[in-house]
């Protein structure tokens, strides 16, 4: 894990803007839209859907809550109740940089 970047100092879930704002340790900032997070949900169901090319069952991208998972990840709950996705810091950073697919391929 990149010791310079992670963990973040502050994670703000802005419900009105539908956005997750992260201030990383070194001061870098990421703004990630809920739709991006939903698209790149890395839970086994969502991944399987992507593999077989089936669209998401629900398109809800509104985020309801976010909580810390252990020492290195964030769990996001969407308004349709989907909360299976756990986003480790490096993955969140990659999503913010638009490199989510590359991260998953790695």
């Amino acid at each position: 894990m990149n010791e310079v970047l992670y963990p973040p100092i502050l994670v703000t879930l802005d419900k009105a803007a539908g956005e997750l704002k992260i201030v990383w340790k070194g001061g870098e900032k990421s703004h990630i839209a809920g739709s991006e997070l939903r698209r790149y949900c890395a839970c086994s169901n969502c991944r399987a859907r992507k593999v077989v090319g089936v669209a998401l069952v629900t398109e809800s991208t509104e985020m309801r809550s976010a909580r810390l998972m252990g020492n290195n990840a964030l769990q996001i709950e969407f308004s349709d109740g989907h909360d299976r996705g756990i986003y480790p810091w490096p993955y969140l950073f990659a999503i913010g940089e638009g490199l989510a697919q590359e991260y998953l391929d790695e």
Partner: protein
Amino acid sequence: MLEVTEASVRRVLGEIGYSPFGSSYIEMEAIESINIGESGVDLYLKVGLQMQSKSNLLAMTLSSELEKAGIPGVTVHINCEVFASPLISRQGHLKDVKNIVMVASGKGGVGKSTTSVNLALALQAEGAKVGILDADIYGPSLRTMLGIDNHIKPELVDQKYVSPVRKYGLKSMSVAFMSEDKTPMIWRGPMAVRALQQLLENTLWGDLDYLIIDMPPGTGDIHISLAQKVNVSGAIVVTTPQEMAVIDARKGLEMFNKVSIPVLGIVENMATHRCSNCGFEETVFGSGGAQHLADSYQVQLLGTLPLDKRIRADVDAGSPTVVESPGSTLAQSYIALAHQVGIEIWKTNRRGTAAPEIQIVDSL
């Protein structure tokens, strides 16, 4: 003779390379204040671990070291207080728990539970407030090891929470406290994880310096989930010197690295056996394995414990060695282990960055 000023005392303390903490007093920021008065110097140290059996000795040694360096008449005052880990978010009933430490191993049967319980008691003997959670749901052993009678069940509070069972001053909790002795827990992974999380979060631990979690052996489902869900201050990996155990311990270390849990160090258990007949000391499981592992992962070898019949007999009888024969060399080796663990937690907490703050806002 040196002129005695605060600066000169600090300089000399920096030059005394030796401190029981592995780095100098200055580096550890252990100096709280220095008062220079008419009658002498008062040096106040702030130490991030409990070390009752050693603090007077440390004060004396330090005073004499300072005298040798040209500053006589220093009275050393040691104030021990365990630092709270910045990594833990402390939700619910864990809010007054300063540190959570996982004791794990890759391989089973290396003496993880025995080490956990003796370590917990040793930390307590040195003055810390300690709790222990037996997370080994498939082979819980805490009841036997602490000699807690079968009819003793944890007390239910508000229909929702439980009070830990106290034995030898230690606050203990185990899944076995809730069930009958002979019934195994027939649970699949997710169920087991949920049960453990509840046990951890719904126990009224109160104010603790350390909460030790005795993990089940292996690096499976439960480990990953627990490591992900519970944020802990650090982990200790127990192994025997045997190559086979070391290979598995390596996997344990890798797992903790993956989930960003700091590894405090490795404990080498069953390192040597002294023949009770002739006194010959034999390395039954080989030697050097744990040291090598610690070196390659740049973690500390926290302690080396012997293979001794008494350690086994004491836990089987429900009175672990640290309480059964506190003066023995065996108990002393657990006390020494407790010091090392305390030091490493102190260091890790000093280095650690705080858990991120999470805000949820509705509008701007």
